[in-house]
């Protein structure tokens, strides 16, 4: 195939060079403030003095700007095109959020500022705790965890503390086969053993298997609902009662919360601990892989163990306005808190954006989010089933929540192209591919999550692109097998990168 290769685009012709290969000795951007105090020698013991300065770039500001702006153009991004990356909720990022987060009163507030001079920040966090508690249907919130996986770790450490407080040493945590990889990885970090629960024919948790595996050594069941298959588990109430009967906790991975706001709440389903992915449901920009935030909401029985500090509100005895404070809890025998999971109070900049989002949307708007997310997903699903249902069938069921999983196994058999090839060919259509090869329980999986912020026209274009690639592959599968052609680079040798890792620029 030569399509797109000759002539090459300017980006394709350009050899990638790092900032370390640019610049020239002596060139610089930074100008240090003048030394305005008397210079004194010998302030650092000779053995601790740096012998050779770090070989950082030597480049001018214009050179740096051009380098990174050109680099940015080698990225596909959500502002430029459709990004239906399943399980990641790539919804529009309102720019209001960036504007308010950059206000100096938020952006330049020191985390150890006296709480009396950080009342605005603490009020915001307190109000956000309340809003998240309401969305979760659980009364207590800690904003501290830095991401979903960090929230999971908090949840299992809370579970451990809860059981220990009751004099119990439980050893196992249950996760379904369809779980995010972070779930089992977290289980190990928290010192538990993973026990996998099978799925039933409909893609839900197999209740018989769950019953068989739930005993008094089980500390917790970790669950995503709707699952990574885009299915709301109809047996959730039975599952909760099976797990609770043995005294174990029920943990809700909030990755898929975007599907159910205003319709159902994890607390009402019987969960004890929930984490939110603020970068998913509450639209923190994904930043190329973070930052995010993973606050948790918990039930009354888990509350005493929450991390510190907590934001609290105190009503003064004189009837004045409420005062917000950080409850540091310096430990001590009476404290049951698991302590700290990180420094300071959490990713406040993310909280500001989330707060702005919740204020903008309100109760109605949040429900609307979930309705349109589910509507869009089902629309794309219905259209794909009509056009390419034979090659890319839905893995389970008839409809979906906010995302759905197709299997590329028939496509591979009939047309000789894999899900990976379809994904790579989509890049030539200007679309970021859906998640591929996850969940692991579906062969050649394609996990599609359109989100609520896409227009019907964009959804139609995506369906047409998938259908075009399938039709093209029926004529000539080589085209997809060698795709992409139009991107800054073509398929990369990942095996070569892993065999002989080069993880830094040779200087």
């Amino acid at each position, binding site marked *: 195939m030569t399509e797109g290769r000759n002539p090459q685009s300017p980006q394709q012709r350009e050899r990638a060079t790092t900032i370390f290969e640019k610049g020239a000795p002596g060139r610089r951007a930074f100008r240090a403030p003048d030394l305005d105090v008397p210079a004194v020698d010998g302030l650092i013991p000779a053995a601790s003095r740096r012998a050779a300065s770090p070989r950082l770039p030597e480049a001018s500001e214009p050179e740096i700007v051009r380098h990174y702006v050109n680099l940015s153009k080698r990225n596909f991004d959500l502002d430029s095109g459709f990004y239906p990356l399943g399980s990641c909720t790539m919804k529009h990022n309102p720019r209001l959020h960036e504007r308010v987060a950059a206000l100096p009163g938020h952006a330049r507030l020191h985390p150890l500022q006296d709480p009396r001079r950080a009342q605005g920040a603490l009020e915001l966090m307190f109000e956000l705790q309340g809003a998240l508690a309401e969305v979760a249907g659980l009364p207590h919130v800690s904003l501290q965890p830095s991401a979903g996986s960090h929230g999971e770790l908090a949840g299992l450490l809370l579970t451990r503390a809860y059981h220990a407080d009751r004099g119990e040493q439980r050893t196992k945590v249950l996760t379904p086969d369809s779980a995010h990889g972070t779930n089992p990885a977290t289980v190990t970090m928290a010192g538990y053993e993973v026990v996998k629960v099978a799925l039933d024919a409909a893609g839900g948790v197999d209740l018989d298997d769950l019953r068989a595996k739930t005993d008094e050594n089980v500390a917790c069941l970790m669950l995503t609902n709707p699952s990574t298959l885009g299915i709301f588990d109809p047996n959730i109430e039975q599952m909760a009662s099976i797990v609770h009967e043995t005294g174990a906790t029920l943990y809700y991975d909030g990755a898929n919360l975007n599907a159910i706001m205003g319709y159902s709440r994890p607390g009402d389903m019987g969960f004890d601990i929930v984490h939110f992915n603020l970068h998913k449901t509450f639209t923190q920009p994904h930043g190329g892989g973070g930052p995010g935030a993973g606050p948790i909401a918990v039930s009354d029985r888990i509350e005493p163990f929450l991390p510190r500090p907590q934001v609290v509100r105190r009503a003064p005895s004189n009837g004045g306005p409420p005062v917000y404070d950080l409850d540091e809890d310096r430990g001590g025998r009476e404290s049951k808190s698991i302590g700290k999971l990180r420094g300071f109070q959490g990713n406040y900049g993310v909280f500001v954006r989330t707060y702005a989002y919740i204020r903008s949307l309100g109760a109605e708007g949040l429900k609307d989010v979930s309705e349109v997310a589910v509507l869009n997903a089902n629309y794309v699903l219905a259209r794909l089933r009509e056009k390419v249902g034979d090659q890319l069938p839905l893995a389970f069921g008839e409809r979906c929540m906010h995302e759905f999983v197709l299997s590329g196994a028939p496509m591979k058999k009939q047309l000789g192209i894999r899900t990976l090839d379809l994904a790579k060919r989509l890049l030539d259509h200007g679309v970021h591919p859906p998640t591929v*090869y996850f969940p692991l329980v579906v062969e050649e999986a394609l996990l599609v999550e359109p989100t609520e912020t896409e227009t019907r026209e964009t959804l139609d274009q995506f369906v047409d692109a998938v259908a075009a690639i399938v039709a093209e592959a029926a004529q000539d599968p080589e085209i997809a097998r060698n795709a992409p052609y139009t991107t800054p680079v073509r398929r990369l040798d*990942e*095996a070569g990168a*892993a*065999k002989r890792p080069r993880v830094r620029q040779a200087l």
Partner: protein
Amino acid sequence: MAEAGYPDELLYHAEHDWARVDDGVATFGITWFAQDALGEVVFFDPPEVGSSVTAGEFYAEVESVKAVSDVIAPLSGEIVEVNTALADTPEAINDDPYGDGWMVKVKLSDPDETTALLDRDTYVAGL
């Protein structure tokens, strides 16, 4: 990548491992089928010389770009040598699974265990 093949002179374990026994010492590796299922091998994590292995249990890990697989010992014994060349050329596991792609040599603790292994035709029939 090597042509599909299963040498007659080897003993096979149903988890897609082979053993070549010579005077109480066995050489272990993975079969053509196993390397093909795994895809391009990028890393082999060997056990330590002197450690013991048990038939039917894993003794090493082999990695492709997107998967990690446990390698199962067809027989029990003590590791007397590991193929250190695989550190630089893990692709030998794909290119020559029965030759340069060998993984470890094991001094067998119970040579009678070989009776539980499969001959070529029985192994191939099970694929």
